[in-house]
C-alpha cells in the first residue's frame, strides 16, 4: 500500500498569492522505499517538502495528498509530525535560549502523548538520545547548547538527522541535507538516515547532487521541473543527470501539448 500519495498538487505562496509554484505534482511512495527528487534551483523541490510538512506560508490551491490512509492536507504541521512525518530542514532555524535537549524532549513527548504512550522522564530520554548521539558522532555538549545557535553549517545538518533518528519517523523528508557537508560528515549523516530505513518506513530526499545517493541508495529518482515531476527513473538517472545536466530533459519535454496530455492521462489513472 502506498504510504504517501500525492495527486495533482498545486500550491503557491499564501500571502502574496500569484502564480502557483507547484503546478500539479504526482508522486506515490510505498512503505520501504527511498525516493530522491532532483532538479534545478527554483523548480519547486523545497516547496514540495514544506507543503507536505504543512507550512502555512504556502497555500494548496488544488490537489490531494493521502498519507497512511489519511487526508494529509487536513492536518496541521504538528499533527503531521505526531503522525510520523518528519522534515529535515535545508536551513535549520536557531531558537536562542532553548536548549537542544529541552526542545527535543518536548518534541518526543508530544509525539508519545499523541500515541497514547507515557511521556519520557529525564533519565529515559537521556538513554534514548545517547545511542543516537553516538550514531551521529555528536558530542554530549550538543544537548546543552541552544537549538542550532552558533552551530556550523555541518553541525546544523547533523542535528537535523540526529533529531530525525530520535523521533524515528515513518516518512522522513530530507531537504538538501547534503549541502554544506564535507565528505566525512556526509557519510555520518547518510549512516544516520540509512539506520531509519525499514519495511514500514519511507524516505524522500531532495538533493542537487548524486553523491548523497551513493550512500543512501534510492529506489526511484524523480526530476522536478517548473513545479512538476517530469521524469522518473532508477538510481542510474541520478548518474546521468550528474554528467548531462538538466537541459536534455527540458528539451525532451518541450512539446507543451504533449506534456499536458501526459499529465492529464496520468492523473486519470485509477489508484
Amino acid at each position, binding site marked *: 500500500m502506498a504510504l504517501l500519495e500525492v495527486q495533482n498538487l498545486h500550491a503557491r505562496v499564501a500571502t502574496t498569492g500569484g502564480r502557483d509554484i507547484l503546478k500539479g505534482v504526482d508522486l506515490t511512495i510505498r512503505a520501504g522505499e527511498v525516493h530522491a527528487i532532483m532538479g534545478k534551483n527554483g523548480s519547486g523541490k523545497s516547496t514540495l517538502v514544506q507543503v507536505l*510538512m*504543512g*507550512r*502555512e*506560508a504556502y497555500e494548496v490551491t488544488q490537489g490531494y495528498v493521502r498519507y497512511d490512509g489519511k487526508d494529509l492536507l487536513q492536518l*496541521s*504541521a*504538528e499533527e*503531521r*509530525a*505526531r503522525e510520523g512525518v*518528519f*522534515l529535515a*530542514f535545508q536551513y*535549520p*532555524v536557531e*531558537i*536562542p*535560549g*532553548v536548549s537542544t535537549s*529541552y*526542545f*527535543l524532549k*518536548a*518534541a518526543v513527548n*508530544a*509525539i508519545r502523548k*499523541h500515541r497514547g504512550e507515557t511521556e519520557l522522564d529525564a533519565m529515559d530520554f537521556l538513554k534514548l538520545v545517547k545511542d543516537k548521539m553516538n550514531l551521529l558522532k555528536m558530542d554530549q555538549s550538543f544537548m546543552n547548547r*541552544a537549538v542550532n545557535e552558533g552551530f556550523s553549517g555541518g553541525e546544523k545538518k547533523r542535528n537535523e538527522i540526529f*533529531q530525525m533518528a530520535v*523521533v524515528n519517523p515513518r516518512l522522513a523528508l530530507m531537504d538538501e541535507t547534503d549541502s554544506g557537508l564535507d565528505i566525512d560528515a556526509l557519510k555520518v549523516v547518510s549512516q544516520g538516515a540509512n539506520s531509519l530505513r525499514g519495511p514500514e518506513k519511507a524516505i524522500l530526499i531532495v538533493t542537487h547532487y548524486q553523491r548523497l545517493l551513493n550512500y543512501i541508495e534510492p529506489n526511484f529518482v524523480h526530476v522536478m521541473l517548473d513545479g512538476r515531476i517530469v521524469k522518473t527513473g532508477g538510481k542510474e538517472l541520478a548518474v546521468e543527470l550528474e554528467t548531462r545536466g538538466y537541459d536534455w530533459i527540458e528539451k525532451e519535454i518541450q512539446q507543451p501539448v504533449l506534456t499536458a496530455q501526459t499529465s492529464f492521462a496520468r492523473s486519470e489513472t485509477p489508484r
Partner: protein
Amino acid sequence: MYDCSKEVLGYHNEEVTLLQKERDEMRQRRDTNRIRVKAGLVENNDPKPREFASQGSYAMKTMTQHPEKDYDIDDGIYFDMDDLKKDDGTDMSALESRQMVRNGVDDGSFKKKLEEKGVIFCSISEAVQKHPELVKKYMGSVVPYADNKHACLNSGVFTDGSFVYIPKGVRCPMELSTYFRINASETGQFERTLIIADEGAYVSYLEGCTAPMRDENQLHAAVVELVALERSTIKYSTVQNWYPGDKQGKGGIYNFVTKRGACRGANSKITWTQVETGSAITWKYPSCILQGDNSVGEFYSVALTNNYQQADTGTKMIHIGKNTKSTIVSKGISAGHGQNTYRGLVRIQPKAANSRNYTQCDSLLLGDKCGAHTTPYIDVRNTSSKVEHEASTSKIGEDQLFYCKSRGISLEDSVNMIVNGFCKEVFRELPMEFAVEAQKLLGVSLEGSVG
C-alpha cells in the same frame, strides 16, 4: 602492588560520607519540621498534607561531609490537588501553595534566626517605633518626597511597608520576601520599602505582587529605596503580576512605582531583576546611583504586554564614582495590542573616570497590532569611559514556529518555548523558584495571544 583499598575505604568513611550521628540529627530535625508545618497548617486553617517524602541526597543516601557543615535535607510535602483552593474556590498558583506551606512552617523561628544575625526585617511602622535612628537617617535619602508626583503622593499618604537592615559583614541567612496584594476596589496602594545593607553585608530580597480582577482601575504608587554601603550587595527581584485588565483593556492596575538604589560605598553592588507581566499601565524605572568608587549597578528586565497593556519601563544608571560599572539587559515582549517601551538613561559624570556601561535591549513582537519602542538616553561627560548599546527588534518568526511545529510541538507550546528562550538571560538572574514561577507566568499571560 600495595593494596590501599583499606585506607581508601577508611578515609571514605571518616572524611567523605556523612557520619551516622549527623544523619540521625538531621532526620530528627526533619521530623520536627514536619510536626511544625502540620501544626502550622492546622492553625492557619489550611489543607492537610497527604504525605511527606524525603528527596535529594538524603533520599539517595549520597550525603557527604562539608567543612562548614553546609548540608541539609530535602523534604517534600504532598497535597491533594483538589485541596489546594483559595477562599473563592479557584486553584492556588504554585507560588501561593508554597507561600501557604512557608506560612505553616513559620512559627517565629525564622525571625529568631534573623535576629541572631542582627538582621532587622519588619514593617515600616514597627521600624519607626524600634529603630527610629535608621529610619530617620535613610528614609527619603534616595527618593526625596519632591522627586516626582507619584513619589510625592506616596510620601504624603503611605501607611506602611517593609523595612530591612543587614548589619556590618552579615550575609543574610535566607532570602527575604514580601508579597503584596490589592484587595479593595477603587483604591490606591502606597507602600514603601527601605532596605539598608551595611558595610560588607549581603541580602537578596524578593517581591511578588498580585491583585484580583476588578472592572475599575486601581492605583499602585510605591516607593522602594535601597542603600548599599561599602562592599555590600543588594539583590532585589520582582515578579509583578498585578491585574492587567480584561481583553478589551477594561480595569487593571496603574503601576506607577519609584524604585531607586544608591551604591553609597566603594565596591558596593545593586542588582534589580524584574519580571513585569501584569498591570494595565506600568511606569517603572528601577535605578542605581553609583556613588562609591568601583560600585556596580545591574538591571535585568522582562516586560510582557498583552491585550491593551502598556509598559514603559527601564532604568537609570548614574555613574558618579570612579571605575563604576553598569549592565542593562532589557527584554520586551508585546502581544495583542500591547505597547512596550524601554526608556533608559545612562549618565556618566565628569569625575566617573574609567566607567563602563553595557546595554542590551531586545524586543519581541507577537502579532501585527502590538508595538515596541526604545528610548535610550546616553549622556557621557568624560573621555575615559566606555558605553555600549545594543538593540534588536524581532518578530517571532514564522520559520521558528514552523520548525517547532514540524517536530510535533503545539503552537502554544512553541510560542512559550521561544519566548522563554528569549528571556533566558534575565531568568538566569532570578532565584530558582522565582524563575520557574516567571516562566509559567509568561505562559499564562500569553494565553490566546497567537493563532
